[in-house]
């Protein structure tokens, strides 16, 4: 049986021989035998180091609190895919892939913090001063401040403030938390002064801050959050595969199903006659000239 790598690369992450699998120099089996946790291994993998106990606790908290979020785009994606009954892995892959620009712990929040911290360093500003600059930059341009607000938890994300508190309790109040706290303080004050409603910090704002303070780069943090959600989405997909009906359109269910025909609301062009092929050229030219179709172009 061929045991050559599936892809040829120089890598500093790991190697695997017939005798052992080695991650950043540590035999994986030895790591597990020694009693390190899975979250410890995440530090080894992404940061090439053994974390302090407090750092490990922080990551365990962050991943635990982020893992399950009931019906979000990721769970809806997993459930939507699962009704066609592909392999379970397709539903999980879909759920992780939902983490794009607006859902979940994107790397952008981390990069935003790094950008402004770098600027503070270069311009000789304090962290608190640059937090105000950050908020003004975003709000003056009508751009949402990353890490603030959540469409379902409208008056404060139940995970976010506790993450801040846990970070402080564990003595992990680094420069990122200082920036995030200052940002929030100024953000709230400015919105209040403008007579706008309260918008709390979300799990990205709090979670990414903690992950940055314990050394994870923005993309590593994004990976940790999005992949972690894959666990619970697998549970949601499995529940639907084992307890629900395939296709999600059965008339026999007491509740109207997700894909029941009556769930469809159509707001497109009115029903119309298919042109004969013999009329096609004139029809097409007239249609293009008339231009009404343009309002439907997406």
């Amino acid at each position: 049986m061929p045991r050559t790598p599936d892809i040829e690369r120089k890598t500093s992450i790991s190697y695997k021989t017939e005798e052992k699998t080695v991650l950043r120099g540590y035999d994986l089996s030895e790591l597990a035998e020694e009693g390190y946790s899975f979250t410890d291994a995440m530090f080894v993998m992404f940061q090439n180091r053994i974390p302090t106990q407090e750092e490990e606790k922080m990551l365990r908290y962050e991943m635990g609190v982020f893992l399950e979020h009931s019906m979000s785009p990721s769970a809806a994606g997993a459930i939507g895919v699962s009704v066609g009954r592909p392999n379970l892995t397709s539903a999980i892959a879909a759920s992780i892939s939902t983490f794009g620009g607006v859902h979940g712990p994107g790397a952008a929040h981390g990069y935003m913090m790094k950008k402004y911290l770098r600027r503070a360093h270069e311009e000789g500003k304090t962290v608190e001063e640059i937090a105000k600059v950050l908020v003004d930059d975003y709000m003056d341009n009508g751009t949402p401040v990353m890490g603030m607000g959540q469409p379902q938890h409208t008056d404060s994300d139940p995970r976010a403030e506790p993450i801040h508190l846990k970070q402080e309790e564990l003595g992990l109040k680094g420069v990122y938390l200082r920036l995030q706290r200052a940002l929030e303080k100024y953000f709230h004050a400015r919105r209040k002064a403008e007579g706008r409603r309260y918008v709390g910090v979300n799990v990205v704002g709090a979670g990414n801050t903690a992950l940055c303070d314990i050394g994870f780069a923005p993309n590593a943090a994004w990976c940790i959050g999005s992949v972690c959600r894959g666990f619970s989405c697998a549970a949601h997909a499995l529940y639907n595969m084992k307890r629900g009906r395939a296709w999600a359109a059965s008339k026999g269910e007491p509740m109207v199903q997700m894909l029941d025909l009556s769930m469809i609301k159509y707001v497109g062009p009115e029903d119309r006659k298919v042109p004969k092929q013999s009329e096609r050229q004139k029809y097409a030219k007239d249609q293009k000239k008339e231009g009404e179709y343009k309002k439907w172009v997406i």
Partner: protein
Amino acid sequence: MGDLKPKDKKGIGNLDDPGLPFNYSEREYGTVEIDETRARFQWVSEVAYKNVHRIVSRGYDTTELMEEGYGMTDVLFVDFQARIPSVEEDQMLNYVMIMALEDGLSAPAAMSRLVAQSKTFLTQACGASIHAFGHAYGAYSAFGNRLLDELKTGNENGQDMNAIAQDIVDNNLDDESLGVSNLMLKDPAAKRMIARAEKLGVAGEYITLMKLIVEKAQAASDEPVDIDMLGAMGSVMMDLGFTAEATWAILAVTRSFAAGAHFIEEIERSEYRKLGQVLTPKEMYDGEADRPVPPLAEREANSKPALSTNLDEWAKAEEELKSVWGSGASIHEEIEDPSKKTGIKSVGKKI
């Protein structure tokens, strides 16, 4: 437009053909009325819910769980099994997940790196890596369900563990999902995992059965074999109470974290690949020799229809197509009722 009559719909292609069992032109337009006789659609879940202020999984507020000192791995027990694990169970799950995290440049890492080369989101690469866990590389579903089914059937038939293990080996010695192979003859990691489960007191009937399967397979095999990571992780996870599917999901997602690291390293150390950039040397090609494209006008003379009008022709055509690699004619799939199983029983077996 917008006020169509049935007569407007006459004369379109074959739609007036009397062979149709219905009158196509009479069929209604418009969406289906909202069904007021049944409850409206809701996302129904027994796993979790949330409101404006809380996220609750299996009855436990997840923020309260973390504040109480539970961790990510505990939530996996809550989500998949609706229970709080013992300290030892949580330790064992951590152990298994560490071992599942990294596997060098095998399929999940390779897939993640290939996706990374196209300059896309990290999450797409992590998602792609999950697809590596098919029924050979990540055969936890087939492995676990076999143990589950054979134990059930064996118990119903009054067989002891020895007999159940022997039956499994007799019927599956060469199956990629047996959990016994020649992959870990020099690496003690799989055996250490089993020993750790026993030391922590979390070993149960699946580990007992797995050890017997190893014994029987070693006796039956012509070459040295031993428990591999599939056998160790699969049996330990099932003794921790996870179903075969939950095991499959958890371990595939676990590996996906490392796929993220490989994505990042690929971006950091390699370059993106542009469309058309990658060449395939002719030395790698063993298909038809280079040949001229026949003139379109001579198409009839050069074309070869696939139509078979009797079973002999059909059988002959099936055989002929097997010589065309990539046609799919050499792949045989046994289809099971897809509404009962997650996936099909066997994928990609050669006839």
